[in-house]
């Protein structure tokens, strides 16, 4: 029934990749569960290789999943095939990481934005064209762009076209996979503001994926922190940055650049050290223990489950209650 419960829920999501020349499998996403509410912005952060993009592709049904389920408004997306899947997948649209790669180089802006409309068989040709212009205006481009080819536009312009195209089908969930990472800092701010205002206006849900905690914290209502294919912590944005409950979150916050000279900074937790271990051979017990300064014997033996704490946060750490972790400094 629409209007009740979360819009999208992933539970126990697993995506494995076969490694060439090896018998083992890479568990890129290894039992991830989260929910995205209606008109909520859910942020997902993690280092390279933590499985962020794979989760996005799994939700978009672009990557077959090996376990778990993806449910959109009560419909199991992962069990749909063919026509039924095509009908449902229009409700979830995606803005891809690379604005240059995600536009067909042989299409004009009009053709690119019109394509989803045409597939949806919505309205006449004239109505579709009017809608293209309307969508362009909405993302801050004017009518003169309709005839432009992708290669004549800058990255920011292309990403605006991508957003317009993703909005064409009036999706209920917009998946932004590193949608601003490929852009210059100055352009990035414009796109982030655009996404925020569009979300407010259209009341759509957004899954915003990024490696940049600052960007995600600026946008998201709730944040999931991903480490080596598993969620380390899921929490409201304010509480996550004020009081992280997982040592990895603390590390990420400490690694953020601060706009003040080092002599004026308070002592902070040591920032991220070392490389993340390979997801093909994750460490025993807690996956983060090799880089965690609070790790104990128990962390080697037992893998911590994602469990609720008081205050609503979910965390996967044995010592979550006893640790006093430092958050972002005001």
């Amino acid at each position, binding site marked *: 029934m629409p209007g009740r419960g979360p819009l999208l829920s992933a539970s126990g999501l697993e995506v494995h990749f076969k490694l060439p020349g090896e018998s083992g499998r890479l568990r890129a996403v290894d039992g991830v569960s989260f929910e995205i509410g209606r008109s909520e912005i859910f942020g997902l952060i993690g280092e390279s290789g933590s499985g962020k993009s794979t989760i996005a*592709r799994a939700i*978009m049904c*672009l990557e077959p999943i090996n376990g778990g389920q993806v449910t959109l408004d009560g419909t199991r997306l992962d069990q749909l095939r063919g*026509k039924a899947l*095509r*009908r449902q*997948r*229009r409700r*979830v*649209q*995606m803005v*891809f*990481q*690379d604005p240059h*790669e*995600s*536009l*067909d*180089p*042989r299409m004009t802006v009009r053709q690119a934005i019109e*394509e*989803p409309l045409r*597939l*949806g068989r919505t309205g006449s040709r004239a109505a579709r064209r009017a809608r293209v212009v309307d969508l362009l205006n909405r993302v*801050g*481009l*004017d009518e*003169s762009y309709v005839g*432009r*080819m992708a*290669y*004549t*536009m*800058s990255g*920011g*312009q292309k990403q605006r076209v*991508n957003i317009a*195209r993703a909005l*064409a*089908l009036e999706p209920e969930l917009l998946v932004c996979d590193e949608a601003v990472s490929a852009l*210059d800092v*100055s*352009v990035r701010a*414009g796109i982030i*503001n655009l996404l925020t205002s569009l979300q407010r206006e259209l009341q759509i849900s957004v899954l915003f994926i990024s490696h940049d905690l600052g960007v995600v914290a600026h946008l998201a209502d709730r944040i999931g922190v991903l480490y080596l294919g598993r969620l380390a912590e899921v929490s409201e944005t304010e509480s996550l940055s004020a009081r992280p409950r997982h040592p990895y979150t603390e590390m990420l916050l400490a690694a953020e650049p601060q706009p003040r000279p080092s002599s004026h900074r308070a002592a902070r937790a040591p920032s991220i050290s070392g490389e993340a271990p390979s997801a093909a051979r994750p460490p025993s017990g807690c996956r983060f223990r090799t880089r965690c300064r609070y790790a104990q014997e128990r962390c080697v033996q037992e893998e911590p489950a994602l469990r609720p704490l008081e205050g609503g946060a979910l965390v996967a750490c044995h010592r979550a209650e006893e640790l006093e972790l430092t958050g972002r400094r005001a």
Partner: protein
Amino acid sequence: MVTLDPVSSRLPDAARGPAPSAWRSRRGLRQWLWGDWRSRLATCVLALVLVMAIAAPLIARYSPTAQDFIPFRGPSSAHWLGTDDLGRDVWSRLVYGARASIEAAGIAVCLALAIGVPIGLIAGFRGGWVDAVLMRIADTVLSFPGIILAIAITAVLGPGLVHSMLAVGIVFSPSIARLMRSQVLVTKERLYVDAAVSFGNPPSRTVARHIVPNSIQPVVIQATFMLGLAVIAEASLSFVGLGVQYPSPSFGGMLQSASQFISVHPFGVYPPGVAIALIVLAFNALGDSLRDVLDPLASTRRAARLAARASTRRGHRPEAPGGRHVPEGH
């Protein structure tokens, strides 16, 4: 909001060139056929050959098979290119021979495309065992020396222009299939294909609208080169007596009979020999120039080269290629 200044207006005209749209635009066509002296020469040669082939009865001064003249005459005002061993007018035979060559090249290349493109597309798109089976068959065909295979196929079908060119088409098709397959393998992994799938494009439409148009260009360029190769193949098969049948004229057949009397009338080998060489060179030059127009990288290099040449001519030092095309922030 960021200002959105059209980038292209600041680029030098040549740098706007790597036009994927050049495909359809008049400018692209003009650059292909009339871009530099090589392509102009090639266009002229082929236009001449085409006119000769189409209007042969008007251009030829005698019947190509009439033999009431004195054999082995040198060029004269009555017989522009002299007469052959049976006293036939060489110019008239050359004009009709052009018809056979053009026909032969057309049949062979169309057949190679008709077989190779679908096979390459299916192999590349489906992958797995379908790919393995199709490509092993292609390897088998490729492992024979082309001319031997063509002779074998013609021997089975029976000699004649059409049959021998069907054989050449079959011999050419595996290399088209391999090229198409490799292009499809690259194109189907592009983000815009994922994007197309995510709007709800059915597979057939994704292939037709996005994968084929973005994969076909190198195949078209290769086909242009193959036209030249097919002219040679026709000449070779006619030379050994499997192509155009006596007494119809063809370049290969003319070369064959002239070569028998080379000690008596050495001039005889030049008209068909030079004609073959000119046509093949012209097809190759047009293939080269088509690649320059269609391949974005090659034409950027060409634009940089032209810009460098233009500025040296004016007495400036050439600028580093690429340096001037970088758009500033917007």
